[in-house]
């Protein structure tokens, strides 16, 4: 690990000024991903500005019927929060599907959004990687890419975003509250916060240097029910091969509204707008759920070894939507590895 300086400001604007003033400055939250990447030599900040003690720890109901979640709310606390469990079950389940109990106790809401891909090439400084070192190439395209993207990838990068939480937030129309130098503020929908790789895969998000996530804002819950399900190589403590976050409102056997997002398929949480369009007004049957999933996944461009993800995504989406449409509500999460699972690699989590 490279040597670094460390400061722990007591207020938000001092922290922002410290990072903004230093091109080698980086925020430190729970550290579960950044400290690991520093050990690997993938990240080498010269200055760590510790924001984990900033007073961004509240979950507050908003006048519009939503919730504002402070950036420092721990993943475990957010998952267990009574209002999140009651109104946004997909979010609680997504958080609980990620990482381990120990990691969720440390990881923060803001940091979860900013975790970086677990693509093996990105994490290995002995290998080329356009995300880590722009212009060096992407060995994953022809190499080990079973876990990587089938949607929205580019010639430069086929990485996937690892977060479970972000997939639920994308489906739930959440937004990220950002504060920058000179007290500037902006709010970015989660669906626009993460980027597709294009020709600049080194940029995961639209965040500018110095900008700090201060909160995540959830609108009032969508009508109907929501759920999150994750297919992975192990029954627990593994990154998603595919995950699905969905909110569905069915009345009289017809879909009134639908929100659907996929994880594990792309460089960002993949909001499935084409599937949603196909769902609204359709009969709530497995056949129409399948057609809706196909409408989204027809854009997939699988690589040599990950075409299985397309079928897995279709089946998981149908299963989640069907469980949300069933009179009894969502079924229990699947215990057991996904069909076609294989022994785990060196990554573990969310």
């Amino acid at each position, binding site marked *: 690990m490279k040597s*670094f300086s460390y400061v722990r400001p007591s207020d938000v604007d001092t922290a922002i000024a410290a990072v903004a003033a230093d*091109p080698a400055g980086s925020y430190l939250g729970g550290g*579960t991903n950044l*400290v690991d990447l520093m050990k690997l030599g993938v990240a080498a*900040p010269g200055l760590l500005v510790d924001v984990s003690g900033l007073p961004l720890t509240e979950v507050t109901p908003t006048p519009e019927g939503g919730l504002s979640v402070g950036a420092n709310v721990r993943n475990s606390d957010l998952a267990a929060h009574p209002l999140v469990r009651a109104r946004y079950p997909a979010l609680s389940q997504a958080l*609980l599907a990620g*990482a381990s*109990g120990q990691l969720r106790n440390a990881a923060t809401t803001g940091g979860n959004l900013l975790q970086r891909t677990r693509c093996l090439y990105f994490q290995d400084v002995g290998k080329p990687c356009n995300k880590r070192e722009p212009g060096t190439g992407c060995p994953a395209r022809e190499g080990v890419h079973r876990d990587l993207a089938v949607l929205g990838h580019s010639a430069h990068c086929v990485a996937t975003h690892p977060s479970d939480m972000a997939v639920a937030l994308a489906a739930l129309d959440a937004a990220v509250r950002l504060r920058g130098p000179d007290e500037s503020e902006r709010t970015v929908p989660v669906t626009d916060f993460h980027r597709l790789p294009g020709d600049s895969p080194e940029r995961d998000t639209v965040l500018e240097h110095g900008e700090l996530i201060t909160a995540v804002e959830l609108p009032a819950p969508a009508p109907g029910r929501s*759920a999150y399900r994750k297919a992975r190589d192990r029954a627990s403590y593994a990154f998603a091969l595919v995950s699905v976050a969905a909110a569905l409102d069915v009345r009289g056997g017809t879909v009134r509204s639908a929100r659907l997002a996929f994880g594990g398929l792309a460089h960002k949480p993949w909001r499935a707008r084409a599937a949603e369009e196909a769902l609204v007004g359709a009969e709530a049957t497995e056949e129409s759920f399948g057609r809706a999933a196909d409408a989204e996944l027809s854009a997939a461009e699988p690589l040599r070894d990950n075409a299985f993800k397309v079928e897995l995504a279709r089946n998981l989406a149908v299963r989640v939507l069907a469980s949300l449409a069933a009179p009894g509500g969502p079924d229990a999460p699947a215990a057991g590895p996904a069909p076609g699972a294989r022994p785990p690699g060196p990554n573990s989590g969310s």
Partner: protein
Amino acid sequence: MWHVVPRTAQHPPAVSAVTLHVNGVRHRLTLDNRTTVLDALREHLALTGSKKGCDHGQCGACTVLMEGRRTNSCLKLAVACDGAEITTVEGLADGENPHPVQRAFLDRDGFQCGYCTPGQICSAIGVLAEAADGHPSYVTPVASEAAGQSVPPGPSEPSGAAGGTPPPVPLTPEEIRERMSGNLCRCGAYANIIAAVEDVAR
């Protein structure tokens, strides 16, 4: 976004004074900022109960209780934990009397080589507290009334929205397996570890 930029600017020193309260004892240390809590415990305080398995937060052997919550000590920079209360496996027993979770691991033979055991035990203590506090896991059934339709939207007190403090979650073997999944055991003592945790949960 993290950029790899050569250090050219003047930075404050790369060492810090850190106070850690470990097993009830206050320690004042001067540490390189790169020192993790795990390395501070093992290399500076000679508390070698917490083990370094993977050193990347994947195996759980380094699990300690920080402010009462289970945490991977290998991923925590000590400098970022200044003032923290830490309990390691060395701090669990009451004199000569083992902690109930330690006793259960002995009774149930919840280990073979023992390397993962300190982390398993600290993690299990965290699991028991989390379940007692009603914290759900991924396999906890979703209450039927919690499906979104019956909860009126709008401002309300968090503690009141779902009927006050949630009830404890029963620790079935399925719950224990899910909640302990961040602790790997190379010997495969899982069956007995689950039995040990179940014993204490009863």
